[in-house]
């Protein structure tokens, strides 16, 4: 017998089980093989897990869960389904109903009693759910890994399964050869070690041993005519009332059980905690450690299961100010506008018009099926169009998904898939990407497209078409006889519209649940895959209130929205907002003149712009006319968020915006904003750092004090760089920055593990940023938690040293990283030089010496100084260095041999 790596020999067990399955003659007894860690438990089990594999694996799949079960005191039993693994080959074709009977027979025979938790993978997920549905008396929880319970009859089954079922392929691929096995094993990422692959193959040597695999494939209920379809349908319906805790651990890179199936399961089991392991695939338990999160979940000690109570109290919907102004004396004043190209305003809407457009679009969206909780991906550049859509979705109670091009093409695609949007509204480029990457969701184009293109891109509606529907129903349509196409430019069949969409209650603002999901925003992904961040209506409203209070923005103010996230708050704040002539997704395209034109157009007093935009404004200030300069002199507040802005740049900006108070709030997608600081305070903080006059001043970027309604504390780091200390606000103590505020995210989207990590400390959100307070109560940010360097002399945070390095003339951007084992890492500086170096390598002697001196002044000894042509930064801000990537590269370069590409 082949060795079974990871399996304790004491787990192997056989049992003869009397069968009640319809397929077996009465009196049949079948021999089951299973793994059972029971004999290794030292005390009474805390509970029992019953693990059911799919096709074509066997109980070996669950070895990590059995091993971890011993440590955590849980009995874990993993069966080999009959005709599979090392269980008996019964010679009979067992269908889904038989298999549910089989599992029940097995459980009965073993005398498994209460507090049973099923764990399933692949078709084992269906069988385990069937059992759970039937034996509610025994079940206290269900765990699912890549599986599916429902096949939409209107959608084709996954191509890989179609192929396996094809008459020409089926017998050959599943029984005669090991092709189906081999393909399944090849789905592991990274690939399976050869001894593990051998162990998976062990029970399936020879065609006769593989009949069960062939039968399993043939039993896939691909359409309603299939004999197992009723059984599947009954389980799929039954679990809707299965109100036990559920956990889903998912590998999204699965060619068969994609996010669409996960989404279906979460809809049936809405109580489920879900974690998607980005990058993992079908064999998620091979790709990632699923045992640790599983037992953590069973332990139930963390915050995710004892959900942090949301903020309570009065709630004013995000659109409150919009509707107020539309109904009041300001109704005809300008609400939103886009700048045209010639320095003149383009499209603009008064408050009355904005409200009417929002209402009519909301009605139209409801007519095509958008409902409360529907997820709508908006892939439209900021501006009037997006503003209308956004507030229409909020009015319906649909969940908006904002994933931007700043994630990069791959990151964007992963983000969209992870949210499984029901609708996707986008410009042509987004629709092309949707087609190319097979993003889910009904597609709606912004522009009206010709029929051929509509077909090509799978577009079902256009905004123009929707407006016509909305206008028609609002009774304000142009004469439909004159331009029939105007009413229905998409050639939509009026009978195809959803009659329920006409229900006026659907748009009743009082019907809106403040604590329902309102939006999913994405992190920039500069530290790992982009994470979806969920906001409720209440939390979005709190964000609005925090921004208004912190920066003193009042209704009626004029606001230039040159920075996407805050741009959308304009109508909520009651400000007149204008989008300057720029590509808002490329912040550095904002020129000084374009800004001035936008300011002049509405007499704006407030400007939102990204740090990159500020740089370009300075670079293009030579083109400003006297008129421009006069307009800019009226600006009293500039907000720049997304990345730290160096004080000299801000000081220079005063030459263009002489009356402006320049603020650089600090925040993150999970909390916008967290602190605020203005130029004067930055300068005085730097002076304090230089003079060492205030304890803790220095080592990092000073980001000021908490915004209105927010509190901040620090969880100190231990010597290994882990933030496990008791939270403190004492000066000079470095640790993870924790924030508590009504406008902090509700949760991460389908990242249960990440969520439970980030919310494990009471009501605090753990930001993953590292910093400290100074004696004056100001917060200094020192970097990201995963970028901490643990040298033998102690923990080193990167930002302070990088700032010291960047004072050297020959250094542009600097990254400080650690190489080597935790606790004894070598500290390495990787720098861009001016002028840029041609190829990566050792820094010239003089630069190395200078860098060492500079680092020493920040209290850090450098082991090596490397130069590179450019450092990798995030696409969204072009500012956050991927220090993890730099560290990996530096470790390679410093281990000897050829220097790789960074």
């Amino acid at each position, binding site marked *: 017998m082949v060795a079974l790596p990871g399996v304790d020999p004491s787990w192997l067990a056989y049992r003869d089980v009397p069968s009640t399955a319809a397929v077996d003659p009465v009196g049949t007894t079948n021999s089951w093989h299973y793994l059972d860690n029971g004999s290794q438990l030292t005390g009474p089990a805390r509970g029992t897990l019953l693990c059911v594999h799919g096709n074509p694996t066997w109980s070996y799949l669950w070895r990590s869960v059995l091993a971890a079960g011993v440590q955590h005191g849980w009995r874990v039993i993993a069966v080999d389904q009959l005709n599979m693994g090392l269980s008996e080959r019964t010679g009979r074709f067992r269908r889904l109903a038989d298999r549910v009977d089989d599992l029940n027979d097995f459980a009965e025979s073993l005398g498994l009693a209460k507090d049973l938790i099923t764990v399933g993978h692949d078709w084992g997920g269906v069988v385990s759910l069937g059992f759970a549905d039937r034996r509610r008396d025994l079940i206290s929880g269900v765990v699912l890994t890549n599986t599916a319970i429902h096949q939409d009859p209107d959608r084709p089954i996954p191509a890989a399964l179609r192929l396996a079922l094809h008459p020409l392929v089926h017998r050959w691929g599943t029984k005669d050869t090991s092709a189906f096995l081999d393909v399944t094993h090849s789905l592991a990422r990274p690939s399976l070690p050869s001894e593990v692959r051998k162990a998976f193959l062990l029970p399936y040597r020879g065609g006769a041993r593989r009949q069960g695999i062939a039968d399993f494939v043939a039993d896939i209920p691909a359409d309603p005519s299939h004999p197992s379809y009723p059984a599947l349908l009954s389980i799929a319906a039954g679990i809707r009332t299965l109100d036990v805790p559920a956990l889903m651990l998912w590998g999204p890179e699965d060619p068969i059980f994609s996010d669409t199936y996960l989404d279906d399961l979460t809809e049936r089991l809405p109580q489920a905690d879900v974690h998607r392991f980005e990058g993992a695939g079908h064999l998620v338990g091979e790709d990632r450690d699923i045992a640790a999160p599983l037992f953590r979940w069973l332990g139930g000690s963390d915050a995710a299961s004892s959900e942090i109570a949301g903020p309570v109290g009065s709630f004013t919907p995000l659109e409150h100010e919009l509707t107020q102004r539309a109904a009041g004396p300001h109704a005809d004043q300008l609400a939103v506008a886009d700048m045209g190209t010639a320095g003149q305003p383009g499209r603009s809407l008064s408050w009355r018009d904005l409200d009417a457009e929002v209402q009519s679009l909301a009605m139209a969206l409801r007519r095509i099926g958008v409902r409360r909780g529907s997820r709508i991906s908006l892939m439209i550049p900021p501006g009037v169009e997006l503003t209308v859509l956004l507030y229409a979705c909020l009015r319906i109670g649909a969940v908006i998904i904002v994933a931007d091009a700043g994630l990069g093409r791959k990151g964007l695609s992963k983000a969209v898939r992870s949210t499984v949007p029901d609708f996707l509204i986008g410009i042509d480029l987004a629709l092309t990407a949707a087609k190319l990457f097979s993003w889910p969701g009904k597609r709606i184009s912004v522009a009206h497209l010709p029929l051929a293109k509509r077909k090509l891109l799978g577009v079902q509606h256009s905004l123009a078409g929707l407006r016509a529907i909305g206008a028609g129903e609002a009774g304000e349509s142009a004469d439909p006889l004159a331009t029939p196409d105007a009413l229905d430019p998409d050639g939509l069949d009026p009978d195809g519209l959803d009659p329920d969409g006409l229900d006026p209650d659907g748009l009743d603002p009082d019907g809106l649940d403040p604590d329902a999901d309102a939006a999913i925003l994405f992190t920039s992904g500069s530290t790992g895959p982009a994470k979806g961040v969920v906001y409720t209506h209440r939390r979005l409203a709190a964000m609005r209130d925090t921004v208004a209070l912190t920066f003193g923005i009042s209704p009626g103010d004029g606001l230039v929205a040159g920075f996407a996230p805050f741009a959308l708050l304009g109508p909520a704040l009651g400000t007149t907002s204008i989008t300057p002539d720029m590509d808002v997704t490329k912040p550095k395209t904002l020129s000084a003149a374009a800004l001035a034109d936008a300011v002049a157009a509405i007499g704006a007093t407030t400007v939102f712009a990204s740090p990159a935009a500020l740089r370009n404004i300075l670079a293009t200030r030579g083109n400003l006319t006297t008129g421009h300069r006069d307009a800019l002199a009226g600006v009293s507040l500039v907000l720049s968020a997304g990345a730290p802005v160096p004080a000299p740049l801000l000081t220079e900006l005063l030459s263009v915006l002489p009356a402006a108070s320049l603020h650089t709030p600090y925040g993150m997608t999970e909390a916008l904003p967290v602190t605020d600081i203005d130029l004067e305070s930055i300068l005085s903080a730097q002076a304090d750092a230089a003079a060492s006059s205030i304890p803790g001043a220095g080592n990092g970027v000073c980001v000021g004090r908490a915004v209105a309604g927010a509190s901040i504390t620090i969880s100190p780091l231990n010597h290994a760089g882990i933030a496990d200390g008791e939270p403190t606000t004492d000066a000079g103590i470095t640790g993870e920055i924790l924030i508590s505020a009504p406008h902090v995210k509700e949760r991460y989207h389908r990242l249960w593990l990440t969520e439970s990590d980030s919310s494990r400390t009471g009501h605090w959100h753990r930001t993953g940023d590292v910093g400290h307070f100074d004696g004056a109560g100001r917060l200094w940010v020192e970097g990201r938690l995963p970028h901490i360097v643990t040298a033998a002399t102690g923990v080193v945070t990167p930002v302070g040293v990088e700032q010291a390095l960047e004072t050297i003339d020959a250094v542009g951007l600097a990254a400080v990283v650690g190489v080597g084992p935790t*606790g*004894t890492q*070598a500290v390495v500086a990787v720098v861009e030089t001016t002028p840029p170096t041609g190829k990566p390598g*050792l820094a010239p002697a003089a630069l190395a010496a200078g860098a060492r001196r500079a680092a020493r002044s920040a209290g850090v000894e450098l082991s090596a100084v490397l130069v590179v042509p450019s450092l990798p930064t995030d696409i969204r801000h072009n500012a956050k260095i991927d220090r993890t990537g730099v560290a990996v590269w530096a470790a390679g370069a410093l281990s*000897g*041999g050829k220097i790789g590409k960074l």
Partner: protein
Amino acid sequence: MRVLVTGASGMLGRVTADLIRSRGHHVVTFQRRPSGLAGVEDSLGSITDQTAVLRAVQGVDAVVHLAAKVSFGGAAADFEAINVEGTRALLGASRSAGVHDFIFVSSPSVAHIGEALMGQAATPATPDLVRGNYAQTKAKAELLALQANSTSFRVAAIRPHIVWGPGDTQLVERVLERARAGRLPLLDAGTALVDTTYVGNAAEAIVAALGSMDRLAGQAVVVTNGEPRPIGELIAGICRAGGVEPPRWSVPGRVARIAGSIVERVWQRGGIEGEPPMTRFLAEQLSTAHWFDQRRTRELLDWTPTVSIDEGLARLAQHYRGQLSTPLPNPSRP
């Protein structure tokens, strides 16, 4: 205390003997030729001469055993006789002479082959795995020494990594000589991160070990400056200190390793005089990372290096300008 230092003719041996003497101990040195050190007693002889060894350990409280055949080339039998059998004889003689403490000065190469080491902790010597006569025989000897450890005869191994400093004929002189002759290739881009040990620090670590035997006995620790540097930077620093232009050209590490091992074989078979220009061992040392976790070492020895790499290089430059009197960290008071 009466302390025997073997191999006091080498750089580390001289500095160690001098340091022990400066701490007020009576030092006996043991090597073939007079040590030339002031204030110490020379006991002349070869480590392979049983009688000479027995004579040297008489009345001694502690032994610091540095004598070894340290060379990139040479006959295997010589390495075996000096490094293994010499150590065996010294251990036996010391124990019977009532010596309490025995420091075996070893090398990190006893536990490692050519792979990159980054923040490596000390692992047991593996004579069967390591390459080259020197590393193999030092590994055997270290195992012998540590096996001899007992409560009445305490043995510890100190493995300083790449010891250099003023008066160094191994690394420094070779680097300078080859750089002068234009024969010193900077392997790859010279980025391999390498730990080295300034000689004064290594000597202090050995002395610290003598005072830490209650914690240290039976164990091996790696000793370095704990300041890993890219090899290119170090070699350039040594060259500048010696007044020689640093090397500019580079040879890919793999090519050099293959070439080095061929040269090694030719030298050994052909009996060519002198040291081969580039051995596989040297090529590995210069082209792969070799740096070590010093936390346990520093805790066990209750010691930290007092001379940084930069300060060591400055002293080396002083030495070549004829301005340095002693390589010791804190020049001994008269």
